[in-house]
């Protein structure tokens, strides 16, 4: 089960403070990047919920996000639904699709699970790409953002929209912590540790997997609907396996099964990509080398590394006298 440690609380507080600070002070492009990070963060914590706590390493979460984005876009642009209704429907549709994928893939494990989810993701991608009503390769534009003017909130302002995404991330995070701490979440952890035993205890394992996968899909759908509103444009590229692969990289780069780590990973990944691609068109090379270096360090991602260091320091504090850098670290948290 997921546990909050002082370090995790501290990091969350720090991240929230940074995000708020940026949301208030950043210029236009800074806000765009912040929003991109926040939406990616929602997707990757949804992925961490299934991969890090249920062992379901999914390679279709990008596609699920795409389903959410397309559902929102089609329902508002083509079906003329009001944005709040479309948002709810998009989350529901994505959750339903994810539940079905989870139910079908529940029997597969390891690389087979990865490939099975990939297959469904690619099926969705090919279908959307080929279907003219979905805009095909050209995508769909003219997507409206949620209208919250009744509450005095104008989401067409990028600062407000960034704050809205921050709130959505916070809500998603709380929802995931809630799910992981529920009976369902407990059983999921049990399945990850020992699926055979959970079954022998009388648990309908596939149902639990499908339910959690569906819930994760709902959050991915939310990320998709937000992405559609952020760009006000969507294209099938959103569903491609590369997006799913990147999401997985971000989760592992940040720290699988830490929930806080993937958020750190999302920030690191987006910033790195933007900074490097501004300098060179060979940014893949730089990102690739950094990824290899992080993994070679044998830590559980960036946050896993921090946690290991932190625990080691706490251990030294217990045995020896506290030194100066430790105090600094304590004030950080």
């Amino acid at each position: 089960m997921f546990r909050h440690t002082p370090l995790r609380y501290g990091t969350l507080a720090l991240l929230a403070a940074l995000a708020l600070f940026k949301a208030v002070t950043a210029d236009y492009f800074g806000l765009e990047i912040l929003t991109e990070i926040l939406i990616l963060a929602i997707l990757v914590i949804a992925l961490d919920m299934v991969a890090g706590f249920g062992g379901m390493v999914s390679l279709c979460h990008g596609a699920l996000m795409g389903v959410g984005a397309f559902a929102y876009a089609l329902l508002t642009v083509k079906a003329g639904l009001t944005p709040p209704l479309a948002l709810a429907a998009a989350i529901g549709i994505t959750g339903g699709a994810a539940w079905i994928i989870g139910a079908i893939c529940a029997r597969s494990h390891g690389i087979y699970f990865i490939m099975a989810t990939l297959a469904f993701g690619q099926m969705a991608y090919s279908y959307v790409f080929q279907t003219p009503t979905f805009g095909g390769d050209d995508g769909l534009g003219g997507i409206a953002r949620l209208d919250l003017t009744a509450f005095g909130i104008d989401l067409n302002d990028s600062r407000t929209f960034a704050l809205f995404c921050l709130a959505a991330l916070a809500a998603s995070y709380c929802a995931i912590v809630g799910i992981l701490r529920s009976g369902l979440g407990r059983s999921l952890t049990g399945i990850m540790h020992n699926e055979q035993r959970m079954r022998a205890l009388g648990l309908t394992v596939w149902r639990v997997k499908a339910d959690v996968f569906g819930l994760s899909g709902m959050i991915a759908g939310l990320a998709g609907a937000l992405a559609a509103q952020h760009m006000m444009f969507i294209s099938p590229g959103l569903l491609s396996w590369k997006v799913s692969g990147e999401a997985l990289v971000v989760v592992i780069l940040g720290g699988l099964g830490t929930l806080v780590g993937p958020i750190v990973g999302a920030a690191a990944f987006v910033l790195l990509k933007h900074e490097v691609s501004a300098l060179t068109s060979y940014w893949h090379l730089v990102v690739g080398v950094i990824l290899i270096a992080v993994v070679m360090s044998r830590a559980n991602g960036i946050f896993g590394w921090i946690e290991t260091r932190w625990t080691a320091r706490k251990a030294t504090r217990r045995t020896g006298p506290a030194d100066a850098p430790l105090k600094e670290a304590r004030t950080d948290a």
Partner: protein
Amino acid sequence: MNRKTLAALGLAIGLAMPAAAEEITVGLMLPFSGVYAALGNDIEAGFALGLETFGDRTDATFTIIREDTEASPPVALGKARKLIMQDRADVLTGIVSSAVLGAVRDIVHSSGVPLIVANAGNDEATGEACSPFITRMSFSNGQVNRPMGRWMAEQGIGKVFTLAPDYAAGRQMIGAFADSFTEAGGEIVGQAFTPFGKTQDFGPYLAEARASGADAVYVFYAGGEAVSFVRQYDSFGMKDALPLYGSGFLTSALYVDAQGEAAQDVVTALHYVPTIDNPENDAFVAAFREKTGRVPSEYAVHGYDAARALVEASATGAADRAALADALRQVSFEGPRGALSIDPATNNIVQPIYVYRTIAGETGMTQEVLAQTPAEADPVNGCDMAPLIN
């Protein structure tokens, strides 16, 4: 920040400034990584050469901000917003992929920043989704393929099988050809659309084309797919029985070296080939060769002419977004492709189309121009264009 205020702000600053020694910020949006990187590089080289060649015709100076759009519409849209909102670009240019053009269309239109399209050819951009701020200096999908339908029918070709990648551009290119070909009395005996970006082996489709009973095959492919397609078509020995025609991107100067002998005798139509015989083109080809060591492709000429259009527009004294947009719509000149002008009804370029045969030359493959079809404006395609202001 509110976009309208921003646009108004830009306008106000533009009006307040004196006409001389203008500084114009240009956002150059091209793919420098991803599948279209080679195209992006060629357009950039052409654009740089264009500014260098014609830059002294205007007093204005140009600051270029280069952004990598990859082949990804969301990335490109993000970059376009940055250029417009943060860098306050006066004019945007570039755009290789039609999907990218579709993605940035709304923001360009609503913010009133002129965009000179230097490649993307989707018909809607100068059709139902046209905008007074979007001027296309490259081509439209229909424009390049339409004349070929008539020309092939005139050559006495009766039955044609078509092939193209299954995405919007592929369908538009083939659609335009098929319409004009059938109108001129030809018959389309079969069509196949191959999964875009996923098809590497065209064998199955080639067998289908052969079995269709056609007299000729008409295709649209570009980039790596074009290389594979032409080589595989040749390897099956189909050229003797079933001559290969197509949209000229198939045997673009950029790829014809990789196709080699396999491209021999393929007849295609395009708005530019390096062997067009006119003084502007001779000068352009010589200058481009000197700079890059390569023969310029149609992509390079898009960049070159986009730069020239920008220079000509600013030479009229236009320096702010609205004035530049207006001036760009009235650009016309004799370039490497012949006489160019902008159709005021759609903002699409009006240019001649060249039917050419790829043949072996002294230093690799070269192009023999067979016919030059007269320049004609595209149908309006539902474009409801705002009239010119001045």
